[in-house]
């Protein structure tokens, strides 16, 4: 059969074309009334202070990101196995097809357990947040 990626590319073109055309249309329609103060970023009516692009944010976002990188890659390694698993079972028997993956996921689980116990996935809340949160819990 023909190469499916042609069609996919076509859809990509369309998927880009639609929003862009909308932008164009809107740029033709919309008025432009430049005015002082309109362009201030929204901070609940206060005068904006500082830039949001330089603020330091919670390190735990990094932790989660690192964890994700690791586990996402593991899924990359799992997928080929899932695809051939059925044939493998019929070819070499269940244990030989399954055990390696069990070991793999087992090691993964050890790592996850370690990260879990060492608080890599525990979201430490600031005291203020905790105070607020207690009322909900």
């Amino acid at each position, binding site marked *: 059969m023909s190469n499916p990626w042609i069609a996919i590319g076509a859809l990509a073109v369309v998927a880009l074309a639609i929003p862009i055309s909308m932008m164009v249309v809107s740029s033709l329609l919309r008025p432009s009334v430049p005015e002082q103060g309109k362009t201030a970023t929204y901070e609940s009516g206060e005068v904006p202070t500082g830039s949001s692009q330089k603020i330091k944010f919670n*390190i735990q976002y*990094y932790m989660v990101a*690192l964890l994700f*990188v690791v586990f*996402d*890659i593991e899924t*990359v390694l799992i997928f080929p196995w899932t695809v051939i698993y059925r044939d493998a079972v019929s070819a070499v028997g269940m244990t030989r097809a399954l055990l390696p993956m069990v070991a793999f996921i087992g090691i993964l689980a050890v790592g996850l357990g370690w990260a879990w116990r060492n608080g890599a996935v525990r979201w430490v809340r600031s005291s203020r947040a905790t105070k607020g949160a207690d009322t909900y819990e």
Partner: protein
Amino acid sequence: MAVAAEYYLLLSAAIFCIGLFGVLTRRNALIFLMSVELMLNAANINFVAFSLQHGNLTGQVFALFGMAIAAAEVAVGIGIILVLYRNFSDVDVTKATTMRW
């Protein structure tokens, strides 16, 4: 509609050189890291391309490993860069000169 292997080779070489250039010129550790990833992925391009060329899966499997290793490398690298930032409050690789370089 197969592309000749030489073009893949050229592509990967180009990417590798870009990465190398970044490694040699950039002083920001994060950009350094990205450049290294670029180099690794250049290798992956070769693997996938030539596994298609040679018609065996070895290369693709290696590409998977390559990705996994690259990810692990990033994880370790980010960690090190974080402690670097804590100690030197900067991610400039040339700033850290407690010892002679």
